[in-house]
């Protein structure tokens, strides 16, 4: 499937797959904080090394982990070029018309690209090694403090879980609809705005209709099986963390601390 999302769950038996989903979510947040806080190239080197190690541990392979990044290469080149050509600095490599190419701009652009790429790989690893149900449970645990201000966390987690499960189905339907409309002569690539707008209607309306029809069927099935809104007190689910979860959290905390120091 050409445009199936990169972060779809892939079954496996790696350490990362067996880790508790809540711990994995916390580790991802810690790791992401470390990546965002790092502002030196040794820091980025450490982050890249750690990400490579996590990718190897996940048994997904670098190709799968980097798939989303590879699709964005043009965007990354543009960011790098824009920063190199327009960054405000005194030390300039070369100046022409409105462009002021500089080393500072290049390194600034490189930092942005590295941060975004690493965040993408991290998100991809989390989604590829965690099943939607586990992820929904983890999100419920993470959102638990919001219950204090009256947010129905279990319902929110259920909605997010269902949404994650809908994504591959809707992707396939959207692709099928797009191909069908192209075969019927829809001109998506027209330069005229009016033609573009006209061409989008046969794509968007059926996608919404198909999505709402599926949602309607699922809602009816859930109501028929007695699913009701969760009211009153919700008992907090106890999580039994294993040694590997503890080690994972410890390593991510150490990584965050190292990134602050570097």
């Amino acid at each position: 499937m050409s445009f199936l999302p990169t972060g779809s769950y892939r079954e496996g038996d790696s350490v990362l797959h067996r880790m508790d989903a809540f711990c994995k979510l916390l580790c991802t947040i810690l790791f992401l904080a470390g990546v965002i806080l790092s502002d030196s190239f040794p820091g980025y080197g450490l982050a890249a090394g750690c990400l490579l190690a996590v990718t190897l541990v996940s048994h997904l392979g670098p190709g799968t982990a980097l798939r989303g990044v590879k699709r964005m290469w043009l965007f990354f080149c543009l960011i790098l070029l824009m920063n190199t050509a327009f960054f405000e600095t005194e030390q300039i490599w070369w100046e022409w018309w409105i462009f002021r190419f500089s080393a500072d701009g290049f390194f600034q652009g490189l930092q942005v690209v590295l941060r975004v790429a690493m965040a993408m790989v991290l998100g991809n690893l989390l989604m590829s090694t965690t099943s939607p149900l586990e992820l929904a449970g983890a999100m419920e645990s993470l959102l638990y403090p919001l219950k204090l201000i009256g947010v129905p966390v279990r319902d929110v987690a259920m909605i997010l879980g269902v949404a994650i499960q809908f994504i591959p189905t809707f992707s396939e339907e959207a692709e099928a609809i797009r191909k069908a409309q192209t075969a019927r002569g829809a001109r998506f690539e027209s330069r005229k705005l009016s033609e573009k707008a006209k061409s989008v209607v046969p794509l968007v309306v059926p996608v919404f209709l198909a999505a709402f029809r599926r949602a309607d069927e699922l809602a009816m099935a859930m109501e028929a099986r007695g699913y009701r809104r969760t009211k009153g007190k919700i008992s907090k689910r106890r999580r039994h963390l294993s040694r590997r979860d503890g080690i994972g959290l410890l390593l991510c905390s150490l990584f965050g601390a190292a990134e602050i120091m570097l």
Partner: protein
Amino acid sequence: MKKLSYVKKAILTAACIALCVVLPMAFHAIPNAGNIYCPMHMPVLLCGLVCGWPFGLLCGAAGPLLSSLFTGMPSMAYLPSMIIELAAYGLTAGLVMRFVHTKRAMADLYISLIAALLAGRIVAGASRALIFASGSYSMEAWITSYFVTALPGLLIQLILLPAIAFALEKARLIPARYPRTA
């Protein structure tokens, strides 16, 4: 068709969140369509209009987050401001739809849509000026990015969303706002 039940609203919200991930991917196959149509805005606005403000708010907050996790877009740098903007769209669309009753479904829809599109842009501009680009964000930049550049997208949303809402109503997937009495 009767009013939407809580479970149905919840599942429709899940569908709209999933569409926040899928629609931008489908639109990226069309050259420059992502910038023109703002495809992630459509499910959020529709969710607010159909399911109400709490669900619209959730859709606006969770849609960009899941899209960023699944596809890497929007990037982490733009994610917080986009969450605030889309959450404001969903919240306002639902709130205005709840309080405005002109006895004409089309008028209600347009009033809610225009109010949501304006409120979302004001909230997004305020968040950039006060938090994300504090001190370096001007009124001109706000007007240019949210009204001039996005004008085709705004017009297309104003045409497309009522069309989608009426198509869904006709397919009996959402209830009519003012059911005809026999």
